[in-house]
């Protein structure tokens, strides 16, 4: 089976999923599925810089936080319109990514990991100390953003489809971008940055643009996450969140076009599944992740890619 059929089949499955859940009286899981879609978006954006760009950013949660808090603070100040709040939130996240990226991308390797982590933790502590907006306890949004046109985001089914449409849009954008001049150059910089500058590429600027795009998309994921639970807290920016996104990318497939999606499905699905059976869900998830990393070092998407090449081209 070629990946040509895999993608449309996946889309159809995702479209039908909530209807199926309703039919078997498990509508509770529609919300859970929406959460997976949101994390898939965040992980996919990380995969652009981590997988395609080779930038080991350990602070991706900062952009989720920037998006979520922009929506949250605007809601607290009485601005509930999605048309105002969402673009603004994406813009704020992009700006935060621009600042963090501009400084971090001057460093390499472990220093880059540490500095992105440090910036995200800084954001975390800033919002912990912002008592006006809930501080440590977080902030209740009261309701989801208002879209109008008869679309009520509080309806779980509508909410799921909004998340799905946005995720698909992001995936199409990322897939196009990776195959376009921009993405090819980005991947070549991951391979050999010195050579790229020696053939005339402004590598720093190029990577910074990728970093900002990833930050903006993570910001949108933050917007959705804030709306999803109508609640935000500094925990969204905690380093464990950044770490979880990295695990999703690694498990799903670093640099694979659906790595983020697969990783989010597997990781969040596993957590939910194992929590059904045992209190020690984290231990169980850890063991399964260990097995995946050991037996599928290219991630789960890598397994598919390998079996495809084995069946001949």
């Amino acid at each position, binding site marked *: 089976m070629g990946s040509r059929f895999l993608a449309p089949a996946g889309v159809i499955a995702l479209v039908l999923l909530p209807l199926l859940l309703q039919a078997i009286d498990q509508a509770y899981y529609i919300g859970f599925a929406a959460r997976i879609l949101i994390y898939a978006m965040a992980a996919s954006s990380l995969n652009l810089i981590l997988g395609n760009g080779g930038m080991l950013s350990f602070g991706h949660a900062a952009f989720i936080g920037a998006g979520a808090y922009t929506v949250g603070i605007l809601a607290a100040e009485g601005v509930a319109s999605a048309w105002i709040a969402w673009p603004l939130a994406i813009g704020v996240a992009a700006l935060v990514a621009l600042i963090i990226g501009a400084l971090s991308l001057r460093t390499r390797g472990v220093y880059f990991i540490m500095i992105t982590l440090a910036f995200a933790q800084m954001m975390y502590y800033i919002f912990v100390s912002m008592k006006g907006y809930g501080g440590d306890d977080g902030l209740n949004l009261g309701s989801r953003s208002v879209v109008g046109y008869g679309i009520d985001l509080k309806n779980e089914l509508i909410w799921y489809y909004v998340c799905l449409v946005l995720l698909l849009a992001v995936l199409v954008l990322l897939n*196009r971008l990776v195959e376009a*001049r*921009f993405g090819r*150059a980005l991947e070549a910089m991951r*391979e050999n940055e010195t050579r790229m*500058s*020696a*053939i*005339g590429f402004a590598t720093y600027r190029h990577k910074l643009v990728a970093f900002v795009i990833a930050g903006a998309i993570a910001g949108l994921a933050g917007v959705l996450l804030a709306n999803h639970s109508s609640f935000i807290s500094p925990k969204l920016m905690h380093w464990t969140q950044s770490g979880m996104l990295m695990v999703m990318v690694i498990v799903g497939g670093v640099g694979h076009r659906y790595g983020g999606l697969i990783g989010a499905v597997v990781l969040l699905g596993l957590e939910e599944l194992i929590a059904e059976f045992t209190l020690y869900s984290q231990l169980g998830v850890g063991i399964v992740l260990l097995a995946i990393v050991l037996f599928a070092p290219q991630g789960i998407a890598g397994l598919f890619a390998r079996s495809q090449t084995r069946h001949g081209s």
Partner: protein
Amino acid sequence: MTSAAVLEVHNLSKHFGGVQANANIEISVSARETHALIGPNGAGKTTLVAQLAGMLRPDSGAIRFEGREITRLSTHARVRAGLARSFQITSIFARFSVLDNLALAVQARSGTSFSFWRPVRADADLFEDARQIAGEVGLAERVGELAGALAHGEQRQLEVGLTLATEPRLLLLDEPMAGLGPEESERMIALLQGLKGELAMLLVEHDMDAVFRLADRISVLVAGRIIASGTPEAIRADVGVREAYLGDSTA
């Protein structure tokens, strides 16, 4: 110093801690000239190339390219201005095909790389140019191979090809013969002979046979200083050079 100098280096110095890698270097390359730079290991040749390419900041001195001061210009800006380097240690995109390697270099000089939607594959001109360069460096039959799977000699040809693809007017070649067998060396010399006269070259090389066959002018770098500069005949006859570097037996 000729008036049509493509590259002029004045009083260039660089030290690493207590080691003076380059001391008051004066060197120039005229238009279409092949200027060879020779010298024993550790003489500071690669340090000089790195400064000319913008990968190392000189402590003092000035670099002028086509009359324009470029001492503080970034590497990529120099490449776009027409000054490109090759590497002594092969620096290619090992996991990309030969064609993709060259297409990247073509992409760098043709149009924007901030194009996010149109697939690279649809960019026929890019691959057309890449194919042509592959032909020029003798890799026409190998365009589909992964660069990492090429033989060492072929990788050296690709190394030169990547540099050529930027359409330089001055080529900085850092030991293009490094690690090549006799047959591969002949192929590389033929390749460079084909380029000779088309563009200016600063050729850093240990292979004296290649140097004397290719160079219009030779400069000798010893312990960070240029100790002689002149025609191949003059350098061959220079007593100081023979003592410092060539060794009496080679003459």
